[in-house]
């Protein structure tokens, strides 16, 4: 039995310290302010403190820590992207993920399961080949596998998908993993807090103080603070922040929904994605099936659920696993996905000096959590974009130098 548990049990009182200090008041000024207490914002705070010695930092969260898309995604981590920029970026993220539990001393349940993107058509097979070749070229473990390999990994899978969409092959990505999403925010928050970063929940940003094109401060529901550097890491709320800052991005908000079943004993040991069936599914450590599908096809700035989403998803899941018909869905929810035209994020500097953007994550922000934190911290501290995020700069839309990641979307969005 692990030592930490024994230590806990043997102590008479609960000796566990608080995860984060919760200061009562905002200071009048900070060296940097991070808007958004999700995984990205907290990771940026952590790396600012750890790698750049910047500890006079405030993280402002409108609700509670990790309550946005950090706590709403389906926790898949992978680096099998389509563009060299995307692959290099997510590969660096996976490398950070692999040691993150130890680095943060919090068990994030980082579980490497292997990730199959199923192809049901010749055209999907071509895309799998493309991704596999780009991945291999970039040193990422991906390969195109045939139905035999898939069936061996998931004997329960109906390879004909109930006769409607026979599986021709898959892109297999061995490093594909899942992690406990909430813990990621808590782990980064705790570590940042220990180094001096101040975290404020229930604190809403109401305006930006911009003077002569430079950020000078942030207005919040708890008063105004001065700062020369602001990072916006607010995912679906990005348009509200950029509106305050007075510039536009091509980001549009679409709902992305997911659902979870009652727990059952483990049987699904890999992560399965089917673009044609618009499904991704994995089994959590608690035994629930965590399932998602494609984006809702319209812009909505809300987190309401729809019935047709869960009906469609259920139908497709049963094509793959007909025996799950009696398994019950317990809960469904939605997040606001900040989509960009080329399906790659927007990271780096903005038209407002001192204001930095970490946005446009669409459907894959979770897997980027550590690397986005690290590269945004670098960008904030040095005022120079980290080399890994060059392909994600906001200017690329103006300059038509897009980073086309649509083909790597987990399901056809």
């Amino acid at each position, binding site marked *: 039995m692990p030592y930490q548990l024994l230590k806990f049990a043997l102590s008479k009182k609960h000796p566990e310290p608080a995860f984060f200090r919760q200061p009562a008041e905002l200071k009048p000024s900070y060296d940097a302010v991070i808007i958004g207490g999700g995984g990205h914002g907290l990771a940026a705070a952590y790396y600012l403190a750890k790698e750049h010695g910047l500890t006079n930092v405030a993280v402002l969260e409108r609700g509670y820590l990790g309550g946005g898309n950090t706590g709403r995604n389906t926790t898949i981590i992978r680096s099998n992207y389509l563009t060299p920029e995307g692959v290099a970026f997510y590969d660096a993220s996976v490398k950070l993920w692999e040691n993150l539990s130890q680095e943060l001393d919090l068990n994030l349940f980082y579980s490497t399961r292997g990730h199959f993107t199923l192809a049901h058509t010749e055209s999907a097979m071509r895309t799998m080949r493309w991704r596999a070749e780009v991945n291999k070229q970039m040193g990422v473990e991906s390969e195109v596998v045939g139905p035999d390999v898939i069936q061996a990994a998931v004997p329960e899978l109906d390879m004909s998908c109930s006769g409607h969409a026979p599986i021709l092959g898959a892109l297999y990505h061995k490093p594909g993993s899942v992690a406990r999403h909430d813990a990621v925010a808590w782990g980064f928050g705790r570590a940042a807090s220990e180094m001096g970063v101040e975290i404020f929940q229930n604190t809403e940003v109401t305006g930006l103080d911009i003077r002569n094109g430079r950020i000078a401060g942030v207005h919040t529901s708890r008063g105004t603070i001065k700062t020369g550097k602001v990072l916006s890491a607010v995912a679906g709320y990005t348009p509200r922040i950029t509106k305050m800052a007075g510039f536009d991005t091509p980001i549009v908000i679409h709902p992305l929904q997911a659902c979870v079943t009652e727990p059952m004993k483990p049987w699904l040991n890999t992560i399965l994605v089917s673009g044609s069936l618009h499904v991704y599914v994995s089994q959590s450590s608690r035994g629930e099936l965590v399932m998602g599908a494609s984006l809702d096809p319209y812009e909505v700035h809300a987190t309401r659920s729809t019935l047709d989403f869960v009906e469609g998803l259920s139908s497709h899941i049963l094509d793959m696993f007909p*025996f799950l018909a009696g398994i019950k869905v317990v809960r469904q929810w939605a997040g606001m996905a900040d989509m960009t035209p080329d399906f790659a994020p927007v990271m780096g500097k903005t038209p407002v000096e001192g204001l930095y953007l970490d946005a446009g994550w669409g459907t894959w922000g979770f897997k980027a959590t550590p690397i986005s934190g690290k590269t945004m911290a670098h960008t904030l501290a040095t005022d120079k974009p980290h080399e890994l995020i060059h392909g994600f700069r906001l200017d690329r839309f103006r300059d038509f130098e897009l980073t086309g990641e649509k083909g790597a979307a987990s399901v056809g969005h």
Partner: protein
Amino acid sequence: MTLRLPPQPGEWIDRATPVNFTFEGQAYTGYAGDSVTSALWGAGERVLGRSFKYHRPRGLMSLANHDINVMLEDGTAINMRGDVLPLARGMELRAVNTLGGLKGDKYAVLEWMAPLLPAGFYYKAFHKPKALFPFWENVIRRMAGLGVMNPQAPRGEAIKQHRHCDVLVIGAGPAGLSAALTAAKKGVRVILADENARIGGTLGYDHAGQPTALETLARLQSEVASHPNIELLPAHYAAGWYTDHLVPLVGPSGMIKVRAGKVVVAMGAFEQPAVFRNNDLPGVMLGSASQRLIHRYAVKPFQRAVVLAGNDQAQRVVMDLHQAGVEVVAYVDLRPDADCTVIRQLGIPIYLGNCVQEALGKHAVEGVRISRWDGQGHPDPDTSMTIACDGVAVSVGWAPAAALLYQSGCKMRFDDAAQQFVPERLAPGMFAAGRVNGIYGLEAALEDGERAAREALGLATGVARAAETGSSHPWPIVPHTANKNFLDFDEDLQLKDFETAAQESFDNIELMKRFTTVGMGPSQGKHSNMNAIRVLARLRGEPIPKVGSTTARPFFHPVPLGHLAGRTFHPERRTPMHDWHAAHGATFATVGVWQRPAYYGTDKAKAVEAEVKAVRHAVGMIDVSTLGKFEVHGPQAGELLERFYTGHFVNQRVGTTRYALLLDEAGVMLDDGIVARLSNDCYYVTASTSNAATVYREMTRRLQTWGLEATIVNLTGSYGGLNLAGPHSQSLLKLLTDLDLAALANGGVAEGMVAGVQARVINVRFVAELAYEIHAPAQDIARIWLALEEAGRSVGLKPFGTDTQRLLRLEMGHFIIGQDTDGLTNPLEAGLQWVLANDKPFYLGQRSLKLLAEKPVSKRLVGFMLEAPPATLPDECCLVLRAGKIVGRLTSIAQSPTLGQVIGLAYVASEDAAPGSRITIRHQNGRDVVATVVPTPFIGVAP
């Protein structure tokens, strides 16, 4: 031992129909109408399940569909809830999640390790050393989870139905019955749903010793049953609320999706457990559960009971128990003052201002320890005493079943007097009645139901609800140094877990939920959220309204995937010639929803080669009925196309066709097709098979936004088409038509009779230098096909499929959008400058292309040949490298039967785009293959 009572008025069981079943290998008999739990309890069983984390013995808690203590499996179905699972003959059931059976569950050892396993324990261990985590993860995964899924379980076919009604009333207790009848009598259509097999709610089981309410129930029941405006749906639960009052009602055999004008939520309230040590011991149950046992199932809940009270409801429970012959050995009231006149007359010992500190016993209740307390969680140990008993009925408070109200956006407030959340501001079209409003008591509930219905019908607005009469104890929670006082039975969460969580910064209700997992189990917090909120409020030193509650998301009760999916529905489209293809040995490919012949025969390589040969040297014919086909009519039809596609169409001459390229606003190629001008104000437009729906949708959308005077008619399904290609195509077609085919050269179009059928003939060169596309109404096209087959026999006509078509077009050097382009490809890269009419003021994507035109084009689509092809050709999408960097990819590759060469298309660096350049392709096997850029078309232009 049987604990069946003599027949009870209104009981649900049918004593004439005994039902045999087994549980954990033991044989039992219950009655039709029993739930599994009631049958087992009636047979004297106490341990019916094991808890999720510590594997503590568990019995019966609520009988109200949130009783996750009894989760069953039968080898096929898992996680069935015994408290609501109707007993059926021959069931072979066992408890989920045990090791070695329920009685001797070896996992029970975990209880000894409980101090090691506080809330969130798994975050703090197992990750060091890193190498051991996979081992621990495996252990944890196997311990977690509930039932064992059976991969052979049947898919089944649940039925989905749709209903519309003016008023949907959810919950057929007194408030719901009253609301439904009030509305129905006003002449509107009402659906009344209740999750129980029988309607009536509390009318059926809460009698306080005198079943007089059954008369009211009988009257309401017959009124509802006979009212033509009411559709009654018992055994259907409302799974959630969705925008515009869409409410799925889930029943045993399927799901009814109700779209309601107004919704009245009369779903009642969940009785809440008290928190004390061993409050989960079999024999401790909710007061309402003991009443349900008695009146629904005629099962005596206990022999000697202690009743723990926190409100006046408890005395009604005492009287029901007393009437059923249970000896109530103590009435323990958390409150110091309560009017106990009635039960005092029964001679029951009364302990006011006392709490139950703990329940005693190993596998079932053998007694309780009570003591005086201050009502705030501080028992006085000096006053403690034990009382022998075999059960504890707990009535301390309620939580409203307000999930649907929350989902619809209702704002709730916490009512201090009732100690319950009640609606403050309802969403439009939503109404609440009865206990969800904090209104208890039969008369008050009937009145509130009527009020809600009248408001829903607009007959009364702003009528004040009656005052809340419910009462819940503000702090039904007793700490204990030895813990095991459970707040959440699903997740085995004890009081101290919440203290730990708060101390560790998780003192926000949502964070606490996520850290402790309170409310995340199968019952979704129905019995745990309220107490968790109370505990958190106290830990934070703040009132309950400041703490708030977690978001209530669908579903109210879990819904099986099979019910959500309904029957499998996968539409498949077939062309008018489908049967002919099948009869002629076609191997079909699925293209979107269409079935298309890929080639004719079983040996793909041989078939394709023969089909290519026919087209190149004689004549071939392919079914192209799947193409998108639209007519655009009207004075501004040309203008619409002029803006929609990149070329010129306003000035297009009648009888000609033009290539049509569609871009998105970023200049990315979306689709291509042909525009044929049939008359001054009529154009005929084709789109590729896979993009037909998208093109139609976009064109329709643009027509709306641009407000042009034009009409689009989608003929995709009502027109068929075929393509006749090859050197003999013209001479063959001439046999069947009087149209002047020679005049159609270079992309002409003509309408006329072909094989006695009115058709459109278009000269296209996609697969061969000489080819005609013939389009005709779907019911007629097969006549042309058959006539051509007949007439073509002598000149070697062969049908060909899509695989052959791909090869033919590649030989012609034509790209396919989607295969040879991707989500970013623009026409400059694809070499399509010639179709961009940049002299016109606007077309979709033009602005972007103007910007792009000022930048160097970094990659270009070119044709290539492999001089020394490897044994296995590189796959399509293998990369093109230049000095070790990715510059592009090959998009099409094939052995050309016509040329005897391997040819293909690829994106290469612009520097390498000139014919003769050498490019490097990285084969999927890791080796490099050198290719030479060549001009296209690959084959000679002369037929």
